[in-house]
């Protein structure tokens, strides 16, 4: 299922809308993470508007693909994407982190259908995705399981317990995507706790590893197609992203990991995002 130019254009347009929504909802919330959600907007748009087999009107549909978001703190990008995909009204995005909202600061499955799980504490999403993929294989269910993780999260031992399990059981119906944006709260990942060589770590655990430009829609879709075609082992896609992508002041700056923009900053950022008209230039093009 290769992606056409027209589809890429549509996905890019959706990604721009998602980015604008992220800025708007973070300003309204007054707290939350900015850089991670912006950086993953292209990946989320590619999944919800092309890759995932899902139905926004039937979020509990049994045969849907499962998307487990392990690094729950970037959930604003998932909420924004789900709203634009039709899971709930876009205006509900402005209730993020507010009392009584279904859009909790970190995602809770029991509050909002379609989230698949509850996450925030890092490192346990891959295990849950593994349980889902294993169960699907037991029952000959054809749906696929995707697990989105952050790179900083790879510090957690639970990830490697799960990576070992998934590799040992050859869960090829599971595809992991690592948001490789090189930042975490205390600084750059390679200074906080070096992850490299990340690629050979996963290879050693029995995974097929792909590196892609996380802002290149076509490359993301192609990588997932390749993962689907590999039956002998699971695949991890290391998606190289730019934290804060689309807003030049936020890009590459780890200080934007855990804070929201002010209203004044947001006005500038939104003007910049809208001037792009959906076109976010990939670094690797």
């Amino acid at each position, binding site marked *: 299922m290769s992606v056409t130019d027209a589809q890429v254009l549509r996905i890019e347009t959706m990604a721009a809308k998602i980015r604008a929504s992220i800025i708007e909802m973070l300003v309204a919330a007054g707290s939350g993470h900015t850089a991670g959600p912006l950086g993953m907007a292209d990946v989320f748009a590619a999944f919800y508007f092309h890759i995932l087999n899902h139905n926004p009107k039937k979020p509990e549909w049994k045969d849907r693909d*499962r998307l*487990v978001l392990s690094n729950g703190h970037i959930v604003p990008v998932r909420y924004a994407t789900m709203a634009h995909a039709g899971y709930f009204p876009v205006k509900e995005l402005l209730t993020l982190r507010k009392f009584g909202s279904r859009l909790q600061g970190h995602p*809770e*499955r*029991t509050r909002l259908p379609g989230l*698949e*799980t*509850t*996450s*925030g*504490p890092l*490192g*346990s*999403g891959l*295990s*849950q*995705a*593994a*349980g*889902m*993929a*294993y*169960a*699907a294989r*037991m*029952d000959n*269910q054809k749906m696929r399981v995707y697990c989105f993780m952050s790179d900083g999260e790879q510090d957690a*031992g*639970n990830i490697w*317990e*799960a990576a*070992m*399990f998934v590799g040992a059981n050859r869960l090829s119906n599971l595809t992991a995507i690592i948001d490789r944006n090189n930042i975490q709260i205390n600084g750059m990942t390679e200074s906080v706790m070096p992850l490299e060589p990340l690629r050979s770590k996963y290879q050693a655990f029995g995974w097929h590893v792909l590196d892609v430009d996380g802002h290149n829609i076509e490359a993301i879709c192609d990588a997932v197609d390749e993962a689907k075609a590999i039956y002998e082992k699971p695949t991890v896609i290391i998606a190289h992203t730019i934290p804060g992508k689309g807003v030049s002041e936020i890009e590459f700056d780890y200080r934007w990991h855990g804070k929201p923009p002010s209203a004044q900053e947001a006005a500038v950022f939104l003007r910049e995002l809208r001037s792009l008209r959906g076109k976010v230039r990939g670094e690797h093009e």
Partner: protein
Amino acid sequence: MPQRNVPLRKHKDEKERATRDGFGDALLSLGESDPRVIVLCADLAESTRTLAFKEKYPDRYIEVGVAEQNLAALASGFAAMGKVPFVASYAAFSPGRNYEQIRTTIALNRQKVIIAGMHAGISVGPDGATHQMLEDLGLMCMLPNMTVINPADALEARKATLAAAMHDGPVYLRFSRETSPNVTTERTPFVLGKANLLLDAAKPDVAIVATGTLVSQALIAAKALANDFAVTVLNVHTLKPLDIPGILKQAERAGAVVTVEEHQLRGGFGSAVAQCLGTFAPMPLELVGVSDRFGQSGTPSELLTEYGLSAAYIAAAARKAYHRKRDA
């Protein structure tokens, strides 16, 4: 304080078993009756009594290795797909090591996972303090959405396991390694959240409310006290939801209470009963349990004496409660 430990007495013709054996029995029947039931184990198949299930249903037994964090979160994923996962490890490791995964991916996430904590309590004996889990009941009772069961004997353990499989929500089951006398029979009813009165008295002076395998010690203590004053023994197998009406009824009949548990007193069963009595019916209360100490190597009998948990200590606590009531 009394020094002599009253030996556990076996009923004639009765084979003594451990509560973990009752768990193993129940898993086999569940394997037969419910195809959704699966078992995840962290490299402890024999000692968690999941080996028979593994041999009979190899496709539904998932080996996780020594990885308890993965164990808990994997189970959450299986439950999300409609399976009924039982996770088996030692209580010291699960929930000891994987508390956050249980909290977030099972309890908050409201996934029906049944966590079987084996080798709980000080009676694990020679293994020493690292393996003598004395904090699990408190950890699990504090979690919203979690049901907590601590069976008193192998028969009750079997019924508790079957009940957990039927329950809509996550459950923690606590099991012991050591064999213990049967205090219930095949016909004793098991209703989740409903305590069983094992020993009644026409005009009780002290109510002993006990949980887990120490219920047998409470019964021995009651027998030793028979000539002094009248004692009732209530077996509280479900710690959460706690049978507050059942406990209050026996407490108010007697006017003095002793709690018994193989667990830390802080945050354990005694604390829960104290909260209940303090709120609804303040009265003399004595708590038997481990008092802010770690365990050590020894035989179960030596340790029950050293930590003040044996029948002799329960009887002494009952006498103290009785006198406090009388002198009040």
